[in-house]
């Protein structure tokens, strides 16, 4: 079985970030590029499936990123993935969610897959839109927000997180899943894994090698960022006084319920 994990390379989530007023895009200069933290959970999910199935199951990392990104992909390989494919082409720059999903779908079709695993969203754009669009362009069922993924007898069984609990859903392969952080803490890249990653293959794919008949990149984007604004200043904290612990607990519960957090 061939598992493909999509990963995005994002600016260090802990770095202070600025938006360029002209392009309305994130200023990446001087900020380290790292694996999207949510995608590390996708890699963990894939490695768990590989370990449970054994045999000839492989995990391939797939990323659409600038050509200089190979070093970051090595971290994914150091965690235990078998190889990586980097879809890179200057013409892809500025792709929106649709263009990204479309181009990645063409690359993943060429790479071959039985199961695609995505992180829930990217730390930079945070749209969470790519997994659904990617499933559509791949023409396979998409299972989003999965907290558990099992593959047995060629069938996929997942637990999907919902506001009130989780759903158990099954479907055929090939398929796509996106995972939540409940899939399990990403493993550390072991020192042997780090050394072994140097010897693993990172293939590059350019657009010319794919059958891309739709526009991608900035020119092909169907969406446009019209304005960028800082989030509103948080309201002052509300202090609720309660006569005793039980009443305090009730007040907290009511507040959480009002916010639909329980």
């Amino acid at each position, binding site marked *: 079985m061939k598992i493909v994990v999509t990963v995005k390379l994002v600016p260090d989530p*802990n770095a202070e970030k600025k938006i360029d007023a002209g392009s309305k895009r994130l200023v990446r200069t001087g900020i380290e590029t790292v694996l999207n933290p949510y995608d590390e959970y996708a890699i963990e999910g894939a490695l768990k499936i590989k370990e449970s199935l054994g045999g000839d199951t492989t995990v391939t990392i797939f990323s659409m990123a600038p050509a200089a990104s190979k070093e970051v992909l*090595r971290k994914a390989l150091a965690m235990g993935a078998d190889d990586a494919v980097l879809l890179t082409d200057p013409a892809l720059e500025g792709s929106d969610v649709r263009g990204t999903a479309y181009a990645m779908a063409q690359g993943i079709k060429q790479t071959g897959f039985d199961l695609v695993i995505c992180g829930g969203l990217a730390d930079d754009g945070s749209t969470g839109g790519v997994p659904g669009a990617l499933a559509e362009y791949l023409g396979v069922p998409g299972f989003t927000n999965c907290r558990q993924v099992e593959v047995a007898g060629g069938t996929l069984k997942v637990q999907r997180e919902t506001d009130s609990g989780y759903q158990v859903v099954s479907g055929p392969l090939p398929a796509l899943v996106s995972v939540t952080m409940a899939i399990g803490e990403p493993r*550390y890249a072991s020192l*042997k894994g*780090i*050394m072994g990653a*140097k010897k693993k293959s990172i293939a590059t794919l350019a657009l010319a090698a794919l059958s891309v008949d739709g526009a991608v990149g900035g020119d092909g984007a169907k969406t446009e960022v019209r304005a960028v604004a800082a989030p509103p200043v948080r309201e002052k904290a509300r202090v609720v006084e309660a006569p005793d612990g039980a009443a305090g607990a009730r007040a907290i519960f009511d507040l959480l319920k009002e916010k639909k957090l329980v």
Partner: protein
Amino acid sequence: MPYAGTDFYNLDAALSAEQRQARDTVRAFVDDRVLPVIEDAWLEGRFPSELVPLLGTLGVFGANLPEEYGCAGMDNVAYGLIMQELERGDSGLRSFASVQGALVMYPIFAFGSEEQRKRWLPALAKGEKIGCFGLTEPDFGSNPAGMLTRARRHGDGWLLSGSKMWITNGSRADVAVVWAKVDDGDADSIRGFLVERGWPGFSARDQKGKHSLRASDTSELAFSDVELPAQSVLPKSGGLKSPLMCLTQARYGIAWGAIGAAMACFEQALEYSKTRVMFDVPIGAKQIQQEHLAEMLTEITKAQLLAYQLGRLKDAGTMKPAQVSLAKRNNVDMACNVARAARRMLGANGILAEYVPMRHMANLESVYTYEGTHDVHALILGQALTGMSAF
């Protein structure tokens, strides 16, 4: 927010991708697994042995030894960075890794038979087996050549008698690398032996009442006519030079490790100086505290550059033991001073276990003394400079 490290001179840019990744993976491990438990373990006087299998899975033990024996095969700068991060957690944890890797796995690799290497190195790398290193004796610390432990020929093998003291991991070790004079010879007769737990006549007990390295086991080893089989000797060991070669490996790691302890203390002092208000302003706004911080940063940065170049020399195969002495001596002394300055900057809070400086400060007093005391390293440097021994 993950720990970003003290890196005033952007040494990060000089590191290879593997070196950075090795450091980052151990750094994350220390943040996630060590820092949450180390304060209690230290107060309880308990080595956090639950971390050993995890460190084995990470590949920390003997990380600079070859892959064919189950090790990571990393370069020495990466190995040093690993030691730095472990000691940022606690000197006891780094001591465990130093002993396991540099003082047990290294001699088995360097002086052992192929059979000994294959039997022990993969298990030691995984942390499935634990080792200790027996050189120091109650009356022979800085002067190991005077050791009283003897291995006398007995049939095909030897009879081992004597005792060792200040042995890290001694009571939990599955195998002890023990150095003894053969047949009452002089220092040139010293050879290394692999002595296994449970062999009749071999016992170990912990030394209690330590004010330092409390999260580490320190033990006495006793050998009462222990029968050693012929194959227990490390065949390529010979003379005092052999254990001293092991110490050079361990001292190299200590030169890096001390930086980690200093970084932990400095950063806590820096953070504290920004938040602790006295006379209506953060104490960091006071010139006297800024001078303390500037001094700490300066000394840490110098130590980092020293360790980095030492690592490059080791990787190039040109590192000399005296260069290791200089780095161990300077960096541990630096860390002692930084820990003490940080402790003082934290005022009364600085004596509490919930802050790191006093724990590191107490640990570093051992590090100052072990693996060649500060003064012994001055004598090694003096001898290297003048050609005259002042021991």
